[in-house]
Each structure stands twice: as structure tokens, then as C-alpha cells.
């Protein structure tokens, strides 16, 4: 007990001392002088476009935000794991199934790591993946629409932080459990951690044409905490690298008890070998429960499927599949350089950074240069796999990305800086202050085989005095650096939403040309779509009422409806008939307790309304769509339960005549599609 306390004091003193040291030698003024042309470098003239899209995860907001670089302008927030009042995601009947999990409807999560799809180790601009930590899930966003189209739950893991890292041809998304738990879940004392707790590393395969995800297999690992991962590329393609902490297997006061050993471990997985074992049937099938939610492209309706079986590979049954190598204390990132040869292991609580050589690791495996094993997994001799050590680069190294010139850039959380260093000769080249406590950083393509080392964005956890104060809560901050020269140069601060945990950035011309302008109404296969105002109707089925409604500048059809009764379940199926870019229509009705809708051109969305009081209620379009937007409204009459008011609906007849052409147009379409 006494030694433990002493240890704790020593480690705290070391950190504080380190901080004091850094502060003493690098006391920086927050108003760092910006060199002359910084403003010009980030200025995007009106009507011009940014060079890169940067996708930032929203951390505790559960979403993704899209920024333009170098301007730092917020272009869009893409809702993923949290209901989103701006467009009705998670509120509309079509999108609610996206939140189904084995724990029920979970409308808020914590999203952390963004992964863009790749081909040949380069971003291809098709899909974006992100993890949900708390209820372990991986989501896919389609970059032609910037909409979340799929969410796959990962079973039997806890805190899916270590996810979803992609392989260089988008074969797999690799993830690891942050917290180990009993597998399968059972009622055991927490202090039986060592006997009962396990960690899973999960491989999700991707359909190469549609991006659809499938849980291919899981590898059962010792009960450590798995934190971050990277897959090999080029020479190291076929291998995954995952950092682990808490190799002490502590279960309480982890800040001390999981920070005892000088070294933790990096897991090294030969996934091609794992594939062979799966093909050879070396897995055990274990009953479990997880949800797969997929949006149907033609209807825009998400469907959930409960999956009940998973395949588990056990390292002791599958030799040469999994190895460990020691890594400095409490590692975070394990980042692979563009050549695929070097793997950077950051110890958050270590003053040094270990840089491994893939070829040396392979040689050590070949020569069986092991220092024992853990639960049947060989531990490679640390020195045998080491390329070298970057000594005392800063405090709290977190994440490293690379440029195309053999340089690495690492964020240092404790000493609040970004450090540039040479991967080959391990020489420190430059350091720049950040404001404050950066977590991850991003260089466009900086984790791929083709980095574009022009800009670097550091994502800071703390903002303090960077912006006008907004009470106790401040927006987190991102900072843009120019890294095209020998020395890094701070260009811009910009506020972010939620916690900008992690990001990837891609050249705009890989995404922009594929961006959809509207949904083709011919392809709208929604079962409640209304293709033309003449098709609008109201149908009662018991106490369910379905309103087939259309929206077009500047009216909703029908705009007067009578015959609803208290206690009905009214489904407003609103089809936006527009076929023009950037003309969504909204729908809101007084007394709706389930938010509102925003319907894109060509789409159908459904709002469930349960009228509770007799009266006449207004509904209206919520998106300012035209000069007559304010007039885009109507009334719904609600009668008492059991009243004999018949269902009636309509729209002013002269206006109807005006729409004759549009109606015929949709009729023709409908006939064509028959």
C-alpha cells in the first residue's frame, strides 16, 4: 500500500515537474504573432472553394462536422449517432431504425475516429466511417449525399474507442474494445477481472461495390484496454497494429493502477492469416446479439436486423496470427508511416517515443526472438523490433501523422505543442505551440501512402482564452498550420462542435464532383411516396391515419384536412416534389412531440403526430423555401374520439390548375415506371 502511494506521488510529481519545465522554457503568449501573409493563405474569396474537405468527429456530440481547409469554415454537420433537430434524423419514421441496438433505441453516442475509404492506400472519396464509443457501433456515411446510411453494432465489446481503422484497399475496418468485460456478459465480482474479463479485436469486412459492412470475425484477446490501431500499408499490408494499455489488468483507480509498468504492449495481427483460419473453420460460433441498420437507397427507409451469431478466433488455436511487442507506458497512437515500414508507438506517460521497424519485427518473428508469451501470444523482444527511440520530444505524445518528405508530426497533449521530426534519423526539426492540449492532428492524406503535407490541423481539447467567452462552456478549438516549409507556421484558429476528436482530410476534387444535388424522384420507391399533387390523399386504417402529402414551392397539398380524432396515430408522409438543388421543404405541426421533418428534393419523409386535444392545428413548412414560404401552411382539424366528422382534404382549386403541368409530369413518370 505504502509503495503504491509513493509511486503515485512520484508519477504525479514527474508530470508536474515536466509541465513546469516546459512552461519555464517555453512560456508563450497566447497572442502569438502571426506572420504577415497568414490571413491571405486562409482567405477564400466569396464564390471560391476550399482546397480540402476536413471531416472532424464530434466526440460527445456523436456527429461529424465538415470543414473547408484552409478557410476553417464549417460546411455541414452530418448527424450519425445522435438525433439531429436540424433535419429530423432520428426523429423521422424512416431514420429511427438507425438507432436500434441490442440495448434498444440509443439516440446519443460519443463518436471518435473518422476513416475515409481507401484504394491502394489512397483516399477514394466514397465513404466515411466513424465509431460510436458508448454503445459500440460503426457507421458509414455516403459521401455523395453526406448522409449516414448504415450503422453496425459490434457485440461483446465495451467502449469501442479503438475503431474503425481501415485497411489500404478498404478490405476491413479494424476495431478493438477499449474496456475488457466478461465474455459472454455475466454477473461476476469486478475484482475477478483477471479471470473473467476479455478483450475483442473485431474485423468488419466491406462490400467493395456498396460499402455494406459485415462483422467477419472477432479475435479474443487478453483483458487489456485497446486504445488505437492502424493497419499496415505497402510493405506491411496484411497486418494490423493496436496499442493496449492497462496490461496491469487493473479494474479500479486506473490512473494509478494502470500506470505502473514502464511498458505496455502493442498487438500485432496478421489478418491475412486470420482470414485463412476463418476459411479453414478454426473459429467458434458464439450466440450473441447485435443490430445491423441499413438505409435502403431507393426508399430512404432504414431497416434493422438483429444478428445472433459471431465467429471468434482464439490466438492459442491460431498460431502465427497474433503477437505482442512492448511499447512505452500508456500508449495512444501507433501510426504507420507512408512507406509502411515504420510504426510509431507513443507512450502518453513516457518521455520517449518508440519507432518500430516492420522488417525488423518480421525478422524477430522469423527468428522467434521472443521474451515469453501472454496467454499463448508471443511477446517479441522490444529491442529486436525497434528502429530507434525519439528521445524527449515533449510530454504526452498522442498522435503522429506524416508528410510526403519523410517527416512526422506528433501532438503532445501535456506540453501543448506539435513537434516535427524526421522518421529516418529521429531528429527533431521544429516545434509549435498549440492552444491548448491537442489530442489528434490531421494532415490531408497524412495516414495514407500519399500524404499532401500542405496543412496540418491540431484538434485541441481546451480553448480557454482563444475566443470571446460564452460562459463556462467554450467551443473546442482547431488550429491550422502551414507545414509546406521547413518550419511550421500557425495560420488560423477556428471553433468546432462537440469535441473535435479526430479528423481526416481529403482533396475536394475527390468528393465534390460526386455530390448529389437532389434525389431523382423517378427513383423514389418509398411505399408512401406521392408522385404528383393529384395523388395526394388521406387514408384511415383503424386509428392510424396516413396523409399522403406533397410539398412544392409554395404550398403543401392537401392544406386543409378534417376528420382526425383524438387518439389517432397520424403519419404525415411528405414528398418533396422539387427537382432543383438546395430546395428542401420542412414540415412541422403544432403539438407534435416528435420534432419536425426536413425533406430533400425528391425524398419522402414521415412524421408521426398523435393529436391529444380537440381543435384546429396549423402545420407549415419550416425551411424558408421561396418568397411565399410564409404562406406554405395549412390546417388539420381534430375532433373528439368517436366523432363522426368524415375524412376530407383539399387544396384551392385555382391553384390546382396552376399545377396541372407538374401533376402530368409526375403522372407520366409514374406510368413510365410501371
Amino acid at each position, binding site marked *: 500500500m505504502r509503495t503504491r502511494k509513493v509511486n503515485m506521488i512520484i508519477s504525479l510529481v514527474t508530470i508536474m515537474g515536466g509541465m513546469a519545465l516546459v512552461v519555464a522554457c517555453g512560456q508563450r503568449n497566447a497572442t502569438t504573432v502571426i506572420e504577415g501573409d497568414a490571413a491571405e493563405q486562409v482567405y477564400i474569396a466569396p464564390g471560391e472553394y476550399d482546397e480540402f474537405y476536413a471531416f472532424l468527429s464530434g466526440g460527445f456530440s456523436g456527429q461529424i462536422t465538415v470543414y473547408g481547409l484552409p478557410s476553417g469554415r464549417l460546411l455541414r454537420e452530418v448527424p450519425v449517432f445522435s438525433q439531429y433537430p436540424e433535419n429530423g434524423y432520428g426523429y423521422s419514421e424512416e431514420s429511427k431504425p438507425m438507432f436500434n441496438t441490442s440495448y434498444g433505441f440509443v439516440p446519443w453516442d460519443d463518436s471518435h475516429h473518422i476513416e475515409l475509404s481507401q484504394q491502394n492506400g489512397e483516399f477514394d472519396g466514397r465513404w466515411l466511417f466513424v465509431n460510436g464509443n458508448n454503445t459500440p457501433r460503426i457507421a458509414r456515411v455516403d459521401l455523395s449525399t453526406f448522409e449516414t446510411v448504415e450503422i453496425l453494432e459490434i457485440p461483446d465489446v465495451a467502449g469501442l474507442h479503438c475503431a474503425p481503422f481501415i485497411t489500404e484497399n478498404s478490405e476491413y475496418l479494424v476495431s478493438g474494445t477499449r474496456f475488457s468485460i466478461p465474455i459472454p456478459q455475466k454477473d461476476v465480482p469486478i475484482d475477478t477481472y483477471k479471470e473473467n474479463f476479455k478483450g475483442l479485436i473485431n474485423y468488419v469486412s466491406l462490400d467493395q461495390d456498396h460499402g455494406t459492412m459485415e462483422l467477419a470475425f472477432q479475435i479474443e484477446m487478453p483483458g487489456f484496454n485497446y486504445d488505437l490501431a492502424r493497419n499496415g500499408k505497402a510493405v506491411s499490408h496484411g497486418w494490423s497494429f493496436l496499442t493496449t494499455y492497462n496490461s496491469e489488468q487493473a479494474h479500479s483507480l486506473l490512473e494509478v493502477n494502470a500506470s505502473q509498468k514502464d511498458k505496455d504492449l502493442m498487438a500485432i495481427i496478421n489478418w491475412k492469416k486470420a482470414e485463412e483460419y476463418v476459411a479453414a473453420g478454426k473459429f467458434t460460433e458464439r450466440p450473441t446479439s447485435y443490430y445491423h441498420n441499413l438505409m435502403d437507397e431507393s426508399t430512404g427507409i432504414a431497416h434493422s436486423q438483429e444478428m445472433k451469431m459471431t465467429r471468434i478466433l482464439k490466438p492459442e488455436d491460431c498460431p502465427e496470427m497474433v503477437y505482442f511487442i512492448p511499447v512505452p507506458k500508456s500508449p495512444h497512437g501507433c501510426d504507420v508511416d507512408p512507406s509502411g515500414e515504420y510504426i510509431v508507438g507513443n507512450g502518453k506517460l513516457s518521455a520517449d517515443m518508440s519507432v518500430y521497424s516492420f522488417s525488423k519485427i518480421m525478422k524477430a518473428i522469423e527468428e522467434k526472438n521472443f521474451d515469453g508469451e501472454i496467454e499463448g501470444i508471443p511477446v517479441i523482444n522490444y529491442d529486436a523490433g525497434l528502429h530507434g527511440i525519439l528521445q524527449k520530444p515533449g510530454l504526452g505524445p498522442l498522435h503522429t501523422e506524416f508528410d510526403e518528405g519523410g517527416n512526422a508530426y506528433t501532438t503532445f497533449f501535456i506540453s501543448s505543442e506539435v513537434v516535427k521530426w524526421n522518421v529516418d534519423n529521429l531528429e527533431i526539426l521544429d516545434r509549435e505551440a498549440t492552444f491548448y492540449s491537442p489530442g489528434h492532428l490531421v494532415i490531408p492524406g497524412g495516414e495514407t501512402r500519399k500524404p499532401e503535407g500542405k496543412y496540418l490541423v491540431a484538434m485541441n481539447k481546451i480553448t480557454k482564452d482563444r475566443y470571446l467567452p460564452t460562459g463556462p462552456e467554450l467551443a473546442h478549438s482547431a488550429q491550422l498550420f502551414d507545414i509546406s516549409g521547413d518550419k511550421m507556421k500557425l495560420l488560423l484558429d477556428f471553433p468546432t462542435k462537440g469535441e473535435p476528436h479526430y479528423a481526416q482530410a481529403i482533396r475536394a476534387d475527390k468528393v465534390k464532383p460526386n455530390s448529389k444535388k437532389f434525389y431523382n424522384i423517378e427513383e423514389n420507391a418509398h411505399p408512401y411516396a406521392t408522385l404528383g399533387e393529384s395523388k395526394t390523399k388521406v387514408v384511415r386504417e383503424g386509428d392510424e391515419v396516413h396523409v399522403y402529402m406533397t410539398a412544392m*414551392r*409554395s404550398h403543401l397539398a392537401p392544406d386543409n384536412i378534417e376528420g382526425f380524432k383524438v387518439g389517432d396515430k397520424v403519419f404525415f408522409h411528405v414528398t418533396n416534389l422539387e*427537382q432543383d438543388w438546395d430546395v428542401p421543404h420542412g414540415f412541422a405541426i403544432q403539438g407534435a412531440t416528435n420534432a419536425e421533418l426536413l425533406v430533400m428534393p425528391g425524398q419522402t419523409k414521415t412524421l408521426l403526430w398523435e393529436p391529444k386535444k380537440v381543435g384546429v392545428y396549423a402545420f407549415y413548412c419550416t425551411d424558408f423555401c421561396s*418568397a*411565399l414560404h410564409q404562406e406554405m401552411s395549412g390546417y388539420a382539424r381534430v375532433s373528439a374520439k368517436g366523432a363522426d366528422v368524415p375524412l376530407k382534404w383539399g387544396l384551392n382549386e385555382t391553384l390546382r390548375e*396552376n*399545377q396541372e*403541368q*407538374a401533376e*402530368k409530369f409526375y403522372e407520366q413518370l409514374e406510368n413510365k415506371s410501371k
Partner: protein
Amino acid sequence: MNGKSHIAQFLMLGAVLCLGILFLQPLWKITLEAAQFPGGLDLYIWINKISGNDKHIIQNINILNHYIGMKPIHPDAIPELRYFPWVVIGMMAFGLICIGVNRPWFYLSWVLVMIGLGALGIYDFYLWLYDYGHNLDPNAPIKIANMNYMPPLFGEKDLLNFYVRSYPNWGGVFLGLAILLGAGAFYLKGKRVYV
């Protein structure tokens, strides 16, 4: 026959082919430019149809036009688009007859009929534009006193928030060229007779 008479026949053949191009290229193009429509809305008038720079332009123009009470453009409701193609085919056949007969008076009458039809066509186009621009729904949401929304027949004009350009397109150019070639055929053939 000598070489010169061949030239007249070739010119007339050229005129017939130029008319054929009316089935491949629009006669006229009306462009509507406004701040909220980057790149503008292009409306093409063909001998047999009306189209836009994308397939939804007519629908989108109709949505805009309904504010001021303009009738929706409905290509199926314009009978000229059905019979004009036959007139053109007729004139192509007439041109072929001219080549066979190879007489100056045939060429001249072809040219005169063509000019007459062209003028009628332009007058008809004017009437349609006039009708669209002036016959507005009295219940239209936006009414501006003494305002008509007739696009220019030829040239450019401000129409509320739109700047409208109206000019011949390739079809129109080839129509004019057909008349010139016919006139050339008449001129060459006639010169040979009178010289």
C-alpha cells in the same frame, strides 16, 4: 450539263442538309439569369420540342412562373411542335425536287416559300411569347402594375429578378444558311440562263 449547273445543285443539296440539322440542334435559346441560379436556366426551342440544360428546367421555370401567374410551359400543348417538323420535311422534299428539276424558278420559289415560312414561324413564336408574357392569371400571388413578362424575341431584357437573353441557336443559324444556299443556287442557275 456543265460544272456550274452542278454547283447550283450542290448548293441546294446543302440547303436541304441544313434543314435536316433542325432535327439535331435547337432553333432558339432563351437564357434566364438570376442570382440564385448559378449558371442560369437555359431553355432550348427546337423544331419539335422544348428542352432545358437539364431535364428538370421546365418544371423549375414553371414553379417560378406560377408566382406571377404565367401559364406553365407545356410542350405537349403547343401544336406547332407537332406539325412544324412535317413542314420542314416537306421543304426538304421540295428542295430535292428542285435539285432534280434544276430550274432557277424552282430554286427561287423554294427560297420565297422558305422565307415566308420562316417569317411565319418567327411571328408564331412572337405570339406564343406574347401570350405567355401577357395572359397572366388574375389571381397570381405577385402582381406588378403594367408589368408584362414577355421575353425578348431577339435580344436581352430585365424581367423582375431575371436577366433574359434570347438568341438563335445552331438550328436557327442553319435555317438562315439554308435560305442563303437556296438563294445562291437560284443566283448561279439564273446567271447561267441570262448570261
